[in-house]
């Protein structure tokens, strides 16, 4: 049974990479308090729909909270009866009250003070679990090594480390994947010409991208979606905000506080990947800087 879903009544946002062809038959993966994850039964493409303060995700929609609450109630009902969704009506609505948001991360000047400040916050961040299988510390601790391997131009080590991270760790998006997304975000920030100029670093980055692309079948659908978007240079809004905080020391602490609220560990996992790579790009001159400037 496929049921049409009424279009949002209030203005809404959509990611620049929404695939309209995938919206006519969607299955429900998950309905959360402030988001839902849908999947096209024909293409396997994930469609994240968020509301409240969750922010827009690649390939997805961000609704006014009232529409989100309404959608959630409808999906909870539908989920019990195992129905599918047709969001075709949203395409027409997008023409009049949809706002396209580009989720591609532009290059930004990475600020050394901001990076140092972020690193100190991460050092003080408490471990989320004492149970080793539920503790992302193992994955987080690989972030500096991976960053060093990329920036240092070591494709072989880059590949080995990336392979060990994919699909590794706790979470619906495993911690290792979130670390990789953070690394990819930092590399995107540092994409200004001349910042990572050597042939070897280019090879290392290509190795990372290749390993990640090959490794997508070895992780969850939610992570595949996130990693795939990151390979295209697109990131969820909250990732963009956190990455952008590395250009502004005053934005770091609020961004860190917000990141602590992403899932159980995803935000901090991402931040480890981001900050480790930013430090490696800056040549780790941040170590000598004070936390405040």
């Amino acid at each position, binding site marked *: 049974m496929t049921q049409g879903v009424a279009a949002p009544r209030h203005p809404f946002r959509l990611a620049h990479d929404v695939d309209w062809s995938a919206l006519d038959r969607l299955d429900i993966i998950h309905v959360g308090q402030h988001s839902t994850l849908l999947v096209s039964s024909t293409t396997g493409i994930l469609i994240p729909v968020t509301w409240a303060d969750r922010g827009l995700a690649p390939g997805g929609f961000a609704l006014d909270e009232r529409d989100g609450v309404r959608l959630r109630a409808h999906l909870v*009902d539908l989920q019990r009866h195992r129905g599918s969704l047709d969001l075709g009506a949203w395409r027409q609505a997008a023409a009049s009250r949809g706002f396209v948001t580009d989720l591609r991360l532009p290059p930004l000047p990475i600020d050394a003070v901001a990076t140092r400040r972020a690193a100190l916050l991460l050092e003080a961040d408490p471990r989320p679990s004492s149970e080793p*299988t539920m503790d992302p510390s193992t994955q987080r601790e690989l972030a500096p090594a991976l960053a060093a391997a990329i920036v240092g131009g070591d494709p072989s080590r880059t590949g080995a480390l990336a392979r060990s991270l994919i699909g590794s*760790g706790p979470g619906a998006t495993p911690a290792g994947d979130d670390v990789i997304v953070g690394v990819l975000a930092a590399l995107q920030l540092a994409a200004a010409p001349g910042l990572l100029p050597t042939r070897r670093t280019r090879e290392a980055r290509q190795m990372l991208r290749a390993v990640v692309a090959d490794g997508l079948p070895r992780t969850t659908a939610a992570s595949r979606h996130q990693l795939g978007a990151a390979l295209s240079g697109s990131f969820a809004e909250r990732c963009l905000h956190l990455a952008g905080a590395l250009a502004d020391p005053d934005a770091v602490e609020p961004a860190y506080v917000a990141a602590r609220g992403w899932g159980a560990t995803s935000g901090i996992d991402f931040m480890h990947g981001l900050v480790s790579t930013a430090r490696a790009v800056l040549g780790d001159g941040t170590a000598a800087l004070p936390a405040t400037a």
Partner: protein
Amino acid sequence: MTSTDALSVRVFPRLYRDSVTLMALAAAAQKADGVVRVGAVMATPANLAILTEAGMLPDGLSPAPDDLIIAVRATDEIVAEHALDLAEAGLTAQEAIAGERARVLPQTVREGLAVDAGCTIAAVSTPGTYAPVVVEQALGHGLHVFCFSDNVALEDEVRLKRVAAGKGLLLMGPDCGTAILDGVPLGFANAVQPGPIAMIAASGTGAQEISCLLDAAGAGVSQIIGVGGRDLSEDVGGLTTGVALDLVLADPGTEVVLVVSKPPSAAVAERLLARLASAGRPAVACLLGMEDSDGAVTVRGTLEGGAAAAAAAVGRELVLDIGAAAQPKPLSAAGVLGLYTGGTLASEAKIILGRAGVHAEILDLGDDEYTAGRPHPMIDPSARAEHVLRAGSNAEVGLLLVDLVIGYGAAPDPAAPLADAVREARQAAELDGRTLVVAGSVCGTAADPQGIDGQRAALRDAGVELFASNAAAVRFAVACASQTERVSDDRQEEIQ
């Protein structure tokens, strides 16, 4: 690990749960007695390797990356399996008790109706953001709605009331606190006797005060339909009031119609009075602050006046004997302070005092500014007690006006904290060489669960001058204030 350790694992194919849920489930399961370790991870190859290395994965399993795997190591198999059962229950929001699944409570309106198809009304009490969705669902299923939720956008109220009116359904609210439908109280309401007067109220405590006065007069109510405080505004245009009138006029048990509200917009008032005039039965419009008038519709500007008119329409007399013998007296200080839990009672006080030219500060302690993060003072009387104590120490306050609302939904003994606070406040004033006069009324009936006689006695013992109605208490305050002014004028003349 010891040889007595047991390992149990369950795989949940293609089950997505957010990370916070997984972490919480694992942490909770690990706390159980006998549980050594719990892992709840997605079954990616990397995680399967981690579990294997940790001795948390038996041979022979080959789940897929989108499967969820929960592994429990415990002192014995029974403990491990039980921990898994609890974790699974947490995943699916069901409880497994002694091998039987507990009944799943309805999660949606549709499921609720599946349990009881005879429902005719939905009571909605959710945060305001969610209320319109639930209300719309309920209306869609043909249910009347009692919407206790507040902080609902006006545009949603208008839209939903149009839907409701189109279907002949009541949408009582938003922010509707009181109703009695076919003898069944909803929200805050009093145990009143049944009778022939139907009340349509855009005011919760207004409905309570009038229904209690009618009860005291021996006149009962057939229905009390709350419509929400904004229903008679220009924007909403009396949509629910219109539906309510249709229903009560078709109710064979209704002989008199009484509408209660703060003054509606002029256009809405005109339509309302015209509709009441053509109702074909006696009608009273109690519109706070309006001038009393008698015509096709009896208009009264106070709750007490509305109750008296409605009682008279069924041949009953409202006798306000409580407090009738109280003697007004000059006050130590000119200030009159009202500390109210009922918003409409506060409004009535302001109107009567204002008409008499008495300057007073009247606080509605049920207003949002006082209840942010706190229960309503009708539910938690302690909040008002703080204000009362401060009044005792305030040399400018000569008279304190209070209300006490009892009945269903109110605190079990609201008089006790108020009486204690009044006693202490009056003592503080006395030590300062002043007399603090406290006047008020109890909004309730003899059948209310709190016991009205005991509530009144507690307040009298604390020194509260009690009156039969809020309006009567306020008139006493006016009389005291007038005496105070006269004394002050006399003294001025003497000096001169």
